[in-house]
């Protein structure tokens, strides 16, 4: 239950090939996150899996069965939409019960499953309200409730947290992760936020212009990005990508060093630079430093560092943490 495999899947809208050709294996019980900048085809890919768009070529198999031409309802998948897509004229109870009603279950069975789902999601007190009387987080939970009552073989989430405020987003992120631990069902989650991807995923699929740039666990992507795109996309603040003389000295076209892998000092180091902006977060300090001959470098130190605009600092990149990329942008 819950393995999905894509073979040579492509999608073309008119002239534009949104997804040129793509292979992907999703194993049973995995939490897979599709991440990439907007317009990279991640939502389209999710909709292809859901069956809301027809593939232009290739094959989609769910649980080993070819599902390429099955209608969405027959694929055994449930989807949570970005706008939640709750039915505004129905109560929370009817919303959650809707897929069961469509499946033709008897009333007692529906009641039992709705009550159960409501208990899991802390919605018991809201069952008789209309969606408009709920807060954003509660609506989100109703949408998830509507998905879990069907006991699908996989859940599809299309940027489900992007309409929530920052604090709520962190909470819901946790709730979805806990739900995954509890249900152990395959989940596919689309987001443009690499923090969401890093914190929730078992496996991250980084997409760019419809191509898979790299597939791997969050730490694999962090430690050894396969190319410049992944290097720049994963990690916050972004990796410093340096070209020119310094890169050539290390035998590469581009050299990448993460801000947290630069040792900072106010007295001595490899590079000498001037701080343009210092961001003091308490737990961390982010420095934007202009280094003559190297360029603009971001650095990060744990804890507090009492420097400000115009101060001189010394930076030393940790040599074993350097990422080298060739002229095609691939890791060497």
């Amino acid at each position, binding site marked *: 239950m819950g393995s999905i495999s894509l073979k040579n899947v492509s999608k073309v809208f008119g002239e534009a090939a949104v997804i040129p050709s793509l292979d992907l294996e999703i194993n049973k019980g995995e939490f897979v996150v599709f991440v990439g900048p907007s317009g990279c085809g991640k939502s389209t890919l999710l909709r292809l899996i859901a069956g*809301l768009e027809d593939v232009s070529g290739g094959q989609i198999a769910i649980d080993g069965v070819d599902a390429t031409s099955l209608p*969405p*309802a027959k694929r055994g998948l449930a989807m949570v939409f970005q706008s939640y*897509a709750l*039915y*505004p*004229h129905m109560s929370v109870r009817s919303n959650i019960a809707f897929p069961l009603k*469509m499946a033709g279950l008897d009333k007692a069975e529906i009641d039992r499953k709705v009550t159960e789902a409501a208990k899991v999601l802390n919605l018991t007190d809201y069952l008789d309200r209309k969606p408009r009387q709920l807060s954003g987080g509660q609506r989100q939970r109703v949408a998830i409730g*509507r998905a879990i009552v069907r006991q699908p073989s996989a859940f599809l989430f299309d940027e489900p947290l992007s309409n929530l405020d920052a604090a709520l987003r962190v909470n819901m992120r946790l709730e979805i992760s806990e739900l995954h631990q509890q249900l152990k069902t395959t989940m596919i989650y689309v987001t443009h936020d690499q923090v969401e991807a890093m914190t929730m995923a078992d496996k991250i699929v980084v997409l760019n212009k419809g191509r898979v740039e790299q597939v791997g666990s969050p730490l694999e992507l962090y430690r050894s990005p396969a190319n410049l795109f992944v290097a720049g996309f994963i990690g916050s603040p972004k990796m410093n990508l340096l070209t020119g003389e310094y890169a050539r000295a290390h035998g590469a076209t581009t050299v990448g060093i993460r801000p947290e892998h630069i040792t900072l000092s106010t007295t001595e180091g490899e590079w000498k630079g001037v701080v343009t902006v210092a961001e003091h977060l308490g737990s961390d300090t982010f420095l934007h430093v202009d280094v003559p001959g190297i360029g603009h470098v971001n650095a990060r130190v744990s804890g507090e560092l009492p420097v400000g605009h115009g101060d001189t600092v010394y930076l030393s990149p940790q040599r074993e943490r350097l990422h080298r990329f060739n002229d095609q942008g691939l890791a060497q």
Partner: protein
Amino acid sequence: MATLHTRSHARLMMAPSVLLLLGWMIVPLAMTIYFSFLRYNLLMPGMEEYAGLMNYRFFLTDPAFFTALANTLILTGGVLLITVIGGILMALLLDQPMFGQGIVRILVIAPFFVMPTVSALVWKNMFMNPVNGLFAALAKSVGLAPLDWLAEVPLLSIILIVAWQWLPFATLILLTALQSLDEEQKEAAEMDGAGFFSRFIYIVLPHMARAITVVILIQTIFLLSVFAEILVTTNGGPGIQTTNITYLVYAQALLQFDIGGASAGGIVAVVLANIVAFFLMRMIGKNLEA
């Protein structure tokens, strides 16, 4: 309009238009009520005298009154039924992506811009005429005897003509409602296993409820007073088979020259319209609450 100060200013500035509109309504209403208590016949000028409730008694006990009342309600109900159901179907069709969508939409809306007298005459002479009409030709082409629509099924004919005029209005309002339905909701329902008919009944129809209410309320206002279509096609006949309240008031005033009786009829029509509005609001008014 947050403070007491701005509110009183607002009232002051709205006052002229409110007073003008009030006067515009009150003066004709007061004159109609006044005339309805007079014995006022155009054939006997200068002989007006107070007549008490006589005009009302004559109008309400006129055998034509109940027929006219029934005709009014059948006409209104029939047209509403055709335009709402037909409008929903047309809106569903027009919502489908197709070639020449813009042109088709304009064509669909066109009947609404044709004035009632003209469209009724076109229907009478070019469609329903038993000799030259299109329907007669169609009937003859399959070997049937042509139907003299306006003589044999006069009320149905009027209903068809009026429904043809109002169908574009209903279609237009319902189409905009249909287009405002969130695409993700339809997709969610599709994922939830709802087929086309379930989606229509559980998702689309409830979404359109408010628009349907608006269509019914607005059309009722106009359909209770259909007049031009009757005047140019059947003149209320044969007999009084297509006489509605509006036409009966017209006949009283301008065929029998009885202004007093017609005024009483007008007031009766106002009361009836309010009764209909009351029941309509009780039935479907809750759909308008946000």
